[in-house]
């Protein structure tokens, strides 16, 4: 596993360096330079296991250089580890802490998906204007969790989106998929609750014609797969 790669970030891309070779993705996760969290990509895993990604429908170009092109409805999944970082006024990054045991998946999206990302992010930012007092202490980490969640949910096809920050320190994002279907995804923003529920776990509800069909605690990847399958039927 490659760790501690250097990288720089711009609002719409992440550039990684490995053996002085610049690796760059165009990603669906615009990352603000002021956000005190960033990601490290397990590139070796991707290099060693391209068939796995082909089999699951992800198309990963080779070599790892330049922009990638892939099915606009798909995302590239990678293992990420969370860092807490501080930034200088010029935007360069100094690591503050790094925990390799805190792994999670992130998703790189095609350039078509950022429009979904922007819609979700707009809904969240509107909510933050009025309800940011519901964020837990250490709101930088909470914002990081929100950003990661938005990136993952950007793969969902939807018509409308609304967001809700709750006083019990969770974020709920609701999508109107079509005239009949609405889904709701709720994730804890507080570290302890997130750990207790499971890092990649969310509360997922499907509404059809206004009636909740089920409420489940599930891995977010299953939610995305379920909704993509549901909407392609």
């Amino acid at each position: 596993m490659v760790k501690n790669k250097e990288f720089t970030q711009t609002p719409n891309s992440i550039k990684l360096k490995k053996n002085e070779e610049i690796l760059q993705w165009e990603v669906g996760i615009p990352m603000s330079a002021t956000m005190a969290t960033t990601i490290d990509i397990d590139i070796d895993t991707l290099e060693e296991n391209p068939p796995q990604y082909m089999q699951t429908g992800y198309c990963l170009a080779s070599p790892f250089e330049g922009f990638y092109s892939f099915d606009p409805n798909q995302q590239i999944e990678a293992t990420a580890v969370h860092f807490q970082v501080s930034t200088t006024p010029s935007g360069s990054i100094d690591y503050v802490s790094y925990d390799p045991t805190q792994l999670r998946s992130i998703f790189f999206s095609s350039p078509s998906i950022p429009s979904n990302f922007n819609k979700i992010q707009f809904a969240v930012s509107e909510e933050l204007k009025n309800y940011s007092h519901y964020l837990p202490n250490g709101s930088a980490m909470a914002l990081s969790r929100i950003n990661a969640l938005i990136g993952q949910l950007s793969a969902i096809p939807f018509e409308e989106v609304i967001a809700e920050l709750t006083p019990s320190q969770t974020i709920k994002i609701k999508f109107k998929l079509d005239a009949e279907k609405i889904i709701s995804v709720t994730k804890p923003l507080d570290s302890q609750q997130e750990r207790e529920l499971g890092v990649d776990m969310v509360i997922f509800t499907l509404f059809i014609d206004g009636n909740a069909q089920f409420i489940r605690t599930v891995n977010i990847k299953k939610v995305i797969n379920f909704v993509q399958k549901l909407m392609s039927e």
Partner: protein
Amino acid sequence: MSLSLSVPPYPKGIIPDVSFKYIDMDDLNKSAHIAIVRRSTFNDVSKTFDGFGGVREDALIRDGKLRNIPGLSMNLLGGKFEVSHIDFIQKAPASAYWEEGEEISFRQYIECIQYKGGSIPIYFFLSDIHKIHLPYTRKADKVTNKYLAQFEATPPVSNNERYELEGFTIVSHKPNKLNYWHVELDAFDGINPAAPVVKPKSPKKGVDKKSTSHKTQIMLELKELLTTKAMKTLSDCASVPENTYKALP
């Protein structure tokens, strides 16, 4: 005109009568499609409901703490409690539970009534929130094994060595001194039938933080159930049959 003159009189019809008995909520749930109402924490519709017509969590729970959900106050409709009665709040000692056969003197509690005009109602159907399963998992460790053994429970274990369990909700009839139609919502873990799930403020020192994780799962699902089943308007509401609350002479 002073403000006090605009306050309507307290609806004395909702005060418990000596001839009343506790309502068996299971029987009531089987007999009719009963509705329940709770007062929003906000007097503003736009703060109570979201853009898709769903209720916001902070409109249901004042400070949103998970531990405050158990014992969530609501009111049964279809009897003598009308939606407009949510404007009246019973403060201690009027908020203390009424006991069967107890005769209430309204004068004794008249100072314990607060009026909050313009309250926004949030509706539920009893059948949507009573005896609803809340699936959760719990690590198969010594603490859990000891707890399960205490109640002779033998739940299945999943591949990742976690017990697969099911909690459930209960709506209980909890009349108070000035409101017979007061009910409360609780969640149970499906193991201990006597103790509602109450999330501790924070784990005690030396206690594995994961030992509370099942409570977090239950309470997050309970919140989701509440916000999911809440309604902005009520299309129909059955009457509470008299024989469910009036004791036989």
